[in-house]
């Protein structure tokens, strides 16, 4: 039960139930589809970049609590960030979920995203938490292939 509470923290549940930036954007904006075949989660991430800065970011789709909350909190964390910062935050987030090792500077980078640290104890759920992030990478690279996390 304590592990479960660690996984499903209040802030995660809040974002899962009330996802932020949960809407589509016009076709002119970069977008990519993400799919987790294991659980059927499907997301679409929209990102508007100007002068190397993420001006706007949003998502649509359906997924489990972890993937929805991760997508929602990702959009909040990255809006207004430069692509360089985005890269650093993604790396810290990935490390948090996979190795659990992170330095103090990572904590600053991650901010609220630290709540996903509990996912590390549930290896099959790591892909849920990273789906939106991988999809964002595809949108930024302009990849036409849907992202799969399996």
């Amino acid at each position, binding site marked *: 039960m304590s592990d479960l509470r660690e*996984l499903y923290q209040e802030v995660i549940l809040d974002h899962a139930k009330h996802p932020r930036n949960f809407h589509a954007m016009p076709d002119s904006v970069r977008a990519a589809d993400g799919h987790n*075949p*294991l*659980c*059927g989660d499907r997301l679409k991430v929209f990102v508007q970049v100007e002068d190397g800065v993420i001006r706007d970011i949003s998502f649509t789709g359906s997924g489990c*609590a972890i993937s929805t909350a991760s997508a929602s909190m990702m959009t909040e964390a990255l809006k207004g960030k430069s692509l360089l910062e985005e890269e650093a935050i993604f790396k810290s987030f990935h490390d948090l979920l996979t190795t659990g090792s992170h330095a103090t500077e990572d904590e600053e980078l991650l901010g609220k995203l630290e709540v996903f640290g509990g996912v590390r104890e549930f290896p099959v759920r790591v892909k849920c938490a990273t789906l939106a992030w991988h999809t964002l990478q595809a949108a930024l690279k302009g990849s036409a292939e849907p992202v799969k996390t399996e």
Partner: protein
Amino acid sequence: MAVKSMKSARNRGEVVVSSSAFSPDDIRGDFPILQTTVHGKRLAYLDNAATSQKPQAVIAAMTRYYNSQNANIHRGVYELSMEATAAYEAARDRVRQFINAADSREVVFVRGATEAINLVATSWGQANVRTGDEIILSTLEHHSNIVPWQMLADRAGVKLRVIPINEAGELCMEEYEKLLSPRTRLVAITHVSNALGTITPVQRMVRMAHAAGALALVDGAQSVPHLPIDVRDIDCDFFVFSGHKICGPTGIGVLYGRQAILQAMPPYQGGGDMIETVSFAKTTYAPVPQKFEAGTPNISGALGLAAALDYVCGIGMDRIGSYEHQLLRYAQEKLSQVKGLKIVGTAAEKAAVISFVLSCAHPHDVGTILDGQGVAIRTGHHCCQPVMDHYGIPATARVSLAFYNTREDVDQLVQGLQTVKEVLG
């Protein structure tokens, strides 16, 4: 017979037939894994449609083979090899008896139901279908009874037609009737849906296929653990199943095929054991079933499967079926009392499978939280994406029961769902 002596007899692989009412308490001790705990909790294993647990008798049969019988089959002139050959062929005959085939040569050992279907699609398909021919499947099919036919469709230009399902998850028989035509070469249908538990009217469907001049393949992966099987009664041309879903080991399964049809089919894989004579000028093939068993087969798996069939027959497939049905009713009743829970698939004829969705939680979250309570269920699309699409959902949580499950397992599940609601609600 006293419980203890019955148990030891079962563990020796003897058939113990009893007419008394079945109680899982008498046999749970036969399954070592059911005595274990998960996350410090009693294990409620409710993912039997994915794979069943193994009784000691099966584990012992495989250990006995490796300890005292191990040799390659069909070639040695020495005692051990002859013994292993006899045991392997006895296992084949055990399967024949279990599905009531006419001849043990109609039983081909394969890796599982998936390989059996691939064998038919490749070998029978190559020899028998042409551009413009049609193969009928149903929406209920597992991906393993879809993809091999799509691969054949790509190779041979054959068209796949799909029998739709109604809201309850039953096949629309009038649509099936309309799909049948002189172009139909084969009807390949599941006997029991792994995602919904629907039991399909295979006998009638086979009769209709034959009337249209087509052959019929029945995917028995999910029916064999729950229903007595008589391939002559079903009258199908092919019947496939996997050993591991009926208390046997993984990596062994069965393709049953009518002898004349198997004989006329070209080989599936080439290699040792499937030939009569080999020269660079010409190779002649062994008769069935050896023609389809290239290379050293899964000998210990076949022996384990035979032990598993002995074990379930010792209890009796009828008793297993009626007990599971009672437990299914109990589980459906208990689950329908859970607020916000919707059962997906409500066919009148159902095997012990319940798919459901919870309004407050995604199936994946349900699965993770239940795991923390020692409850093992399956979540996802269950290799049945067309079924999920039919209901417009990405996934379900699925409970699948076996005869060793108890009301306590179901209660633990329902209790676990309360925890899901507490955490996510």
